[in-house]
């Protein structure tokens, strides 16, 4: 189901603003101070006469800002117009991923309507460095003709694990570009790219229902310019993902759908290259300490006993044998080899494409395998510092790249090539 890009009640607000060079969609919770900082940061941008900031009505903290959350029209802050906008709709029963996707589409549609040269979406909490990130994300779009600007957050070793374990290395191995946070969610998008997202002709669109997942693959397949901006550590807004299996299903499904859509593109790509980066990577200090992985390992062992029948439909016999061996290892010896994990991810992507079973079941049945990888990764990095973290993730990415021929073979000949 495709949500209406621009809600009717806010269309007139857009008409009042008339036009803008840059549109900024703020999805995260904010307060008046952070908005003022954002305005200040935007004022320093050169070559931008008018900026429209779409601030989410539902994200306004009513305790801090009771007037703004109910305002009917826009406010002016120099050359910046603050437009109240129902980006996220908590009253709808959508999943967080669908809700975020609708918000992105809404920002793209508004940018198109205002004739903007570029747009930015900020989903991280504004009280951190995020106001300044907007400027950093927008600058390459306006000055260097870049089409997609993605953030490179300072990495905590146990944060963004789904990105580290699947999303970033998978996008790198498929599309041949080393993007650390391909799904943002704080992103800068050029007019050229967002126009492809909001094309009226659905068949001409290069993305599906989930622009967050499709932006980076679409830009890379269309040979558009992508760059990274090194920013600080991200503060996550509270999101109710229900549970980890629901999270996996919501996030991986659009990524696997995109793999299917772009199969012709990624099968041509070979080795990966870094994308241009602005600034130096920010490192954070980590506390070295033990972590409890027993529950994750226990969950994997239980699933290995009960879900084998389901995994047998997806994974080849050799993988099942390795998983059986893994489940017999003690907690101290527990280690899932990267090569095994990579093959599992590829096999699930293939099963998703072939509809071996209901897709939601398929992705939810992957949860214990993912937890096994997390347990293994946590075991490796318990006492490690930032440099060890980078090396560990680089090893994983290389395992993805060296496993790509396996994916291509299985993708092309799913019935014949089954080791």
């Amino acid at each position, binding site marked *: 189901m495709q949500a209406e890009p621009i809600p009717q009640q806010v269309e007139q607000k857009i008409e009042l603003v008339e036009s803008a060079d840059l549109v900024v969609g703020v999805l995260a919770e904010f307060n008046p101070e952070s908005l003022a900082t954002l305005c200040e940061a935007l004022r320093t941008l050169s070559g931008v006469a008018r900026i429209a900031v779409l601030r989410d009505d539902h994200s306004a903290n009513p305790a801090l800002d009771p007037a703004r959350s109910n305002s009917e029209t826009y406010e002016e802050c120099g050359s910046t117009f603050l437009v109240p906008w129902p980006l996220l709709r908590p009253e709808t029963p959508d999943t967080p991923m669908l809700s975020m996707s609708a918000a992105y589409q809404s920002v793209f549609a508004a940018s198109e309507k205002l004739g903007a040269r570029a747009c930015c979406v900020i989903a991280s909490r504004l009280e951190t460095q995020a106001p300044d990130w907007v400027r950093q994300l927008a600058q390459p779009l306006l000055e260097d003709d870049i089409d997609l600007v993605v953030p490179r957050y300072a990495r*905590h070793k*146990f*944060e*963004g*694990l*789904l*990105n580290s374990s699947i999303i970033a290395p998978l996008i790198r191995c498929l599309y041949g570009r080393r993007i650390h946070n391909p799904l943002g969610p704080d992103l800068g998008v050029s007019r050229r790219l967002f126009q492809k997202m909001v094309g009226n002709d659905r068949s001409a669109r290069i993305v599906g229902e989930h622009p967050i997942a499709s932006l980076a693959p679409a830009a890379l397949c269309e040979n558009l310019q992508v760059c990274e901006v090194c920013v600080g550590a991200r503060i*996550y807004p*509270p*999101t*109710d*993902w229900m*549970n*980890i*299996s629901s*999270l996996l299903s919501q*996030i991986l499904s659009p990524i696997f759908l995109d793999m299917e859509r772009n199969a012709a593109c990624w099968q041509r790509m070979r080795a990966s290259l870094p994308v241009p980066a602005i600034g130096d990577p920010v490192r954070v200090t980590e506390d070295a300490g033990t*972590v409890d992985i027993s*529950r*994750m390992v*226990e*969950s994997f062992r*239980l*699933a290995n006993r*009960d*879900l084998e029948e*389901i995994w047998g*439909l997806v994974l080849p016999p050799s993988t099942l044998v390795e998983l059986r061996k893994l489940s017999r290892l003690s907690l101290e010896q527990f280690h899932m080899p990267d090569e095994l994990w990579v093959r599992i991810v590829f096999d699930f992507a293939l099963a998703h494409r*072939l*509809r*071996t*079973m*209901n897709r939601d*079941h398929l992705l*939810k*049945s992957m*949860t*214990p395998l993912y937890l096994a990888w*997390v347990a293994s990764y*946590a075991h490796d990095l318990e006492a490690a510092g930032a440099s060890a973290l980078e090396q560990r993730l680089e090893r994983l990415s290389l395992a993805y790249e060296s496993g790509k021929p396996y994916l291509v073979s299985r993708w092309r000949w799913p*019935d014949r090539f089954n080791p």
Partner: protein
Amino acid sequence: MWSQVKQELAQSTARFLARFIGLLPGIAALILALLASIILAWILATIVRRLLASMHFDQRLARWGFPSLAEWSPLQSPTLLVAQAIASLVIVAGILIGVAAVAPEWTSLLVQSVFAYIPNVVGAVLVLIFGSIVARFLSRSVLIGAVNLNLRYARLLSIGVRWLVVVLAVAMALEHLRIAPGIVDLAFGILFGGIVFALALAVGLGSKDLVTKSLERDAQKGSDEHIGEPFRHV
């Protein structure tokens, strides 16, 4: 008197022979129709089997979301099931044609009753297929959900749910076929109630950890931290 008995015997033998001779062409036609239908059924089944095999029908069916059909098929192959179903239909048609050649009045009665019953059979088969698909779907949902909640009796729950739906579907199918409806109602009530009771006992006896987890989840709702400290997945 003896001559009278002989005469009656001769007359009845003649009548029997006349009737038998009259039936012979019909019986020959029945055998011929049966043989022809068996040959036709074999040819059709072979053609259909090869055609479906060349189309990778079994794999396609699994991809379209009907993997449970393989369970009901001979040698786990829906292709064989379709081919054998077509062959059986052709043989049944051959038998009906043969019976019509022996005694047309029997056929009309038989055909009438068979055709009147066909909607019930089709309905029952559809109910069974649908029930099997729903049972598979729900049992998988329960199994995966329960495993992800770290429940030790996930498989038991899943099997319980599957049998609940299968029993319901079989009872509905038998009701459709009008086979001993009173007994079916009673048996269904007992069986369904029994499964629910067994599940309630199983869940009740082992629900301590489930309730604890539910309460923990509710307490931490609004953040994704419950997935496991200190890990953040997105």
